[in-house]
């Protein structure tokens, strides 16, 4: 068994949650790596969709943006962006929407819009992009993020996308019939929403992680499942696949570094 970083564990744990039958709406960063590791290991027929309109992509290297050329070149088909959001996302064809977060609360509500007041922000972030509708139209939402007290907060500054709101049946009360966030994978643990309250609860600790470390890097009082599991360490295949993918990606992106004046 190789040693591995918490980020590698996070990506690999996320990849394991995906199946051959899933249709994933993929964001850039950890979601993209996780989806492609799944495709290159146990889920070769998984359908990866990037919001640029590329359906069924199989990139050799990870894209830097959601619209890199290789996504189109390897796709089953590439459709216009309005069609992507109408027929594919709103049409209910996405099983897993993968989201990251600048701020996350215990109910899976996400902020990637502003830190501070919306009209007088302390930090203006990029905004939601596809997230508001990914969060409500995908059958389920998986969230990945590295833990930190700044990121995992008691109260988010802005509801970029809706998770379980105030918890319980809040989604249902808004007429949202999809499951919402059903999985949170951090660099320390795997979390799932409580069946009733919908509060994210730690169900599995990654190897070497402790309850204390999880609590120290989280801004709310963490709930742990009664029976806490340990996430299986990355297998040799998983780790090699991820590292090869990242090495190919790095080489490819640096390949364009020479610049004209």
């Amino acid at each position, binding site marked *: 068994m190789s040693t591995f970083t918490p980020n590698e564990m996070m990506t690999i744990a996320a990849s394991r949650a995906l199946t051959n039958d899933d249709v994933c709406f993929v964001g850039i960063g950890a979601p993209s790596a996780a989806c492609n590791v799944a495709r290159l290991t146990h889920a070769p027929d998984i359908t990866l969709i990037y919001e640029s309109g590329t359906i069924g992509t199989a990139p050799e290297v990870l894209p830097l943006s959601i*619209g890199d050329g290789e996504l189109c070149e390897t796709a089953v088909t590439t459709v216009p962006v309005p069609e992507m959001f109408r027929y594919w996302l709103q049409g209910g064809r996405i099983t897993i929407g993968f989201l990251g977060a600048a701020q996350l609360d215990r109910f899976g509500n996400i902020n990637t819009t502003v830190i501070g007041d919306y009209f007088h922000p302390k*930090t203006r972030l990029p905004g*939601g992009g596809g997230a508001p*509708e990914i969060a409500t139209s995908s059958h389920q939402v998986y969230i990945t993020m590295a833990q930190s007290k700044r990121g995992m907060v008691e109260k988010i500054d802005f509801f970029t996308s*809706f998770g379980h709101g105030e918890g319980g049946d809040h989604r249902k009360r808004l007429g949202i019939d999809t499951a919402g966030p059903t999985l949170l994978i951090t660099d320390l643990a795997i979390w799932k929403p409580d069946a009733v309250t919908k509060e994210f609860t730690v169900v599995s600790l990654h190897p070497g992680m402790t309850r204390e470390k999880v609590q120290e890097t989280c801004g709310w009082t963490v709930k742990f499942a009664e029976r806490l599991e340990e996430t299986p360490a990355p297998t040799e295949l998983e780790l090699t696949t991820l590292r090869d993918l990242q090495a190919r990606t790095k080489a490819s992106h640096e390949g364009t570094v020479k610049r004209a004046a």
Partner: protein
Amino acid sequence: MAKFLPLKEAVAQNLKDGDTAAFEGFTHLIPTAAAHEAIRQGFRDLTLVRMTPDLVYDQMIGMGLARKAVFSYAGNPGVGLLRRLRDAVENGFPHPLEIEEHSHAAMANAYEAGAAGLPCAIFRGYRGAGLAEVNPNIRSVTCPFTGEKLAAVPAVRPDVTFIHAQKADRKGNVLVEGIVGIQKEAVLAAKRAVVTVEEVVDDFDDLHPNLCVLPAWTVHTISVVPGGSHPSYTHGYYARDNAAYLEWDEIAADRERFREWMQKNVMEKTAEDFAGRVEHLRKAA
């Protein structure tokens, strides 16, 4: 009917102060050359519309062209924030920037409605989302059959849209291929459309009938600008200059460095300089 003009004239004839302008491109085919030409000509008070404002919007905002931005994701794709846009929103530098913020689904539907000649778009969106509370242009309609409340946004109808495309034929028909994004809708939604292309070919007789072709009579002006989407890419011609996107994060972080870079790389350059910038990226395409 499309006329062929040098980019300088194309921009001068189609853009004016106070216009609502879209320089569209979805990572692919970003009309950088057109945006740089607009910067050189020093337009003011523009309302800049785009789903994914990126480097060129950061540049136009940083150079003071924009009064307002309408967008759904204001980031440097794959890298992070747009630091000139941030400076405008957070600090009012170089002057305050009004923003109208949507989700991708809303913007895509709004362009689609614009192309379709409708006053608004309806879709299932914004449920539980904070934008619905801060943007008065997010409203709702009730389905007259099911009673479901659906989100509504006004159609996007730019005064002028700029896009970059692979090629035109001599009649002025334009081909867009690969990640086609929102470009067709952005052109059809606009009062005027300017297209920069990599090249002009005799005819499109060998094209598959179902490709994204904008007939000549839907395009106002075409300018031939090889490399015109750099550091974005043109499918079939040259690859994305990822390094330039990474580098931008540092350039835009500092007001002075930004100014110097713009002076040297935009103000003192012309549309002809784009061809050289993609030379080393052509093999990789």
